[in-house]
């Protein structure tokens, strides 16, 4: 009797088809449009247009600032939470973890709408504080994505390392910055990646709190909605390259971690 009905290779076929149809082909379409003009001729005009225009570069920088702020606030809020969830000594830990991740269960649109209403009541008009509103909504939206990887990284951190540091005479603060923080860096990196990139390109949040803030996501959106495929595509390609760079950078750290794991297993 044959042991397996399907070989591994065969099992991968459905996803390969999906990948080909919805990732690979669109990617080439994107690149094609990015490097052609409206008549279909190869050109770098779109590319030059992006870097030549003060408006687009400004949007790019503004997006980066927004994403940075979002990420920093998320990190500041998430780290203590993740630390106490992972290392705190209290009962019903699972319930607490669930409570912090609970926002993810509620529909995204609903959450932002609710927040928008609250802000409108507090501020009168959302247009007064576009930057603040954007960052606040994004922090609210992305916080669980920061908590989870941090929580996992801190859970993995062996308690005996903390005890060893205390044993060697470190104060609580020294334990934190000499042992806990350096060992949670992989978690920080993956949390940052999971918050920074989406918040740079997010456009739904901005659309929903309809304010005048303009970031990369909204820029692409506005090009596409005016049927300017070429300029929209080139910005997408540029963003893609940036994401690629960030991912490669964070991969270096994860690779290091894997080497550590391997040698521990030995």
């Amino acid at each position, binding site marked *: 009797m044959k042991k397996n009905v399907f070989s591994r290779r065969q099992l991968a076929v459905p996803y390969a088809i999906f990948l080909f149809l919805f990732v690979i082909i669109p990617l080439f379409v994107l690149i094609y449009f990015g490097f052609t003009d409206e008549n279909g001729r190869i050109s770098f005009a779109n590319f030059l247009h992006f870097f030549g225009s003060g408006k687009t570069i400004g949007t790019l920088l503004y997006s980066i600032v927004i994403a940075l702020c979002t990420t920093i606030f998320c990190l500041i809020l998430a780290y203590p939470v993740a630390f106490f969830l992972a290392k705190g000594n209290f009962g019903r830990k699972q319930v607490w973890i669930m409570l912090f991740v609970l926002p993810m269960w509620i529909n995204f649109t609903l959450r932002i709408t609710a927040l928008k209403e609250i802000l409108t009541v507090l501020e009168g008009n959302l247009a007064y504080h576009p930057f603040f509103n954007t960052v606040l909504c994004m922090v609210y939206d992305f916080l669980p994505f920061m908590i989870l990887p941090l929580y996992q990284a801190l859970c993995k951190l062996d308690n005996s*390392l903390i005890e060893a540091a205390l*044993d060697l005479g470190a104060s609580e603060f020294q334990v934190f910055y000499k042992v806990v923080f350096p060992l949670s860096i992989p978690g920080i990196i993956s949390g940052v990646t999971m918050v920074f990139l989406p918040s740079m390109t997010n456009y739904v949040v901005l659309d929903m709190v309809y304010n005048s803030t303009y970031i990369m996501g909204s820029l692409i959106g506005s090009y596409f909605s005016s049927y300017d495929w070429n300029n929209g595509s080139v910005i997408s390609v540029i963003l893609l390259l940036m994401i690629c760079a960030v991912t490669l950078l964070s991969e270096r750290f994860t690779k290091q971690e894997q080497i550590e794991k391997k040698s521990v297993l030995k």
Partner: protein
Amino acid sequence: MKKNQNLIELRHIKKCYDGNTIVTEDFNLEIKKGEFVTFLGPSGCGKTTILRMIGGFELPTSGEILLNGEDISVLPPNKRPINTVFQKYALFPHLNVYDNVAFGLKLKKIPKREQDEKVRHALEIVDLEGFEKRSIQTLSGGQQQRIAIARAIVNEPELLLLDEPLSALDYKMRKEMQLELKNMHKKLGITFIFVTHDQEEALTMSDKIVVMADGEIQQVGTPEEIYNEPSNLFVADFIGESNIFKGRMMDKRKASFCGAVFDCVDDYEVGTIVDAVIRPEDIEITTSGRGQIQGKILSSDFKGTFYIVLVRSGKNEIEIHSLKNYQPDTVVELYIAPDLIHLIPYDSSINHYEGVITAYSEEKGVHVEFTDFGWDVKVEQIFPNGKLINKNGQPITIEGLKVEASFQPSIAQLSDDAQAGVVQGRIISFLYVGDHYRYTVRSKSEEDYVVDDEYLWNQEDFVSILIPKEKVTYRVWDGKNKKL
């Protein structure tokens, strides 16, 4: 202040978790400066918890820990001049060997040059010179272990705690590290407290062994004392192999067990019930006629340097370590020299239970309620003259009187039918005693019952205990001066 030569003193240490689980109730121990002390016991006996309390990672629920006469029981670990070698080494993976070892020195702001010198010296002690720049991940288990030791001793602590540090190493490496640790202890003059469940390790390395079981100290002594003169059956059974026989003192320095009378060195009052402990290597197989008992060889298994020979004599099965091989069914004689028989008097404190008389009626007798169960007893069993009247001829009220019941382990029996016996519980330990097993059963309310049974049960088995009512002895508490 009075000069105190005890480096560390544990006084009435009590430790509970979540208010319920009691690890230890009243733990007392003194350790002198420079000693190599080993806490030895089966897993879950509380030895690591005691060590962690000394290290400051856990706080005692009550009691005092004195270091050089000063109470340190609530000091955090970073304020104690004590360093620990952890079971899983706990080396910092993000630092290299040098930074790991220098971790404590850097915190103390010791000048860089002195730091280098100390780290170099510590690495020299653990035989890893020149490893400063290596990353932790490139080290083998044994090397990581050594770095963990170097990281602790570089701080020159007064006391070094070692929590089963060799358990993750393979056999050969473990043997090697045992010797090295012992040498290190001699060289450094630091007091070591070593925790292990490996009795061989404890016997090889320590100056003093603290045998623990169930949160209590069973015996404290040198390895020789622990091995040759175990103070109770648990120690006898836990340390090394032993044959245990139930016996009785017959005459001065004469004990009977295994169906014969033996001369021995230990002496107790004639008639005392004793347990005789004899190591398998102390029994001589002879055919010369000078043996005290006869037996038949059951089996003989080669163990490298000796044979394990099983001999059946009457109902007893006796284990002997012999240099010679014997064919099964050979009839042999066994000789045991007087000084190799170790007698332990029967622990009369076991199987004593406090109860209260709750009711009395002519037809049912006296109803006694214990922690785990209650039953009706004939009046004569508690009040030998059978009359419930006092000197003046007036009837006395017996309700509310406290009684103490006790029984011999041999009268009780175990059953797997929960309804069959009066008490149910789990077997927490057992040992083989000549022709039967002795079980300690713990009930839900944490009472221990010691029961002899000839059948083999397993630890953790849920059993019920059959206690024949009529064989239990009772004593009335006068309720004034006695205290349970």
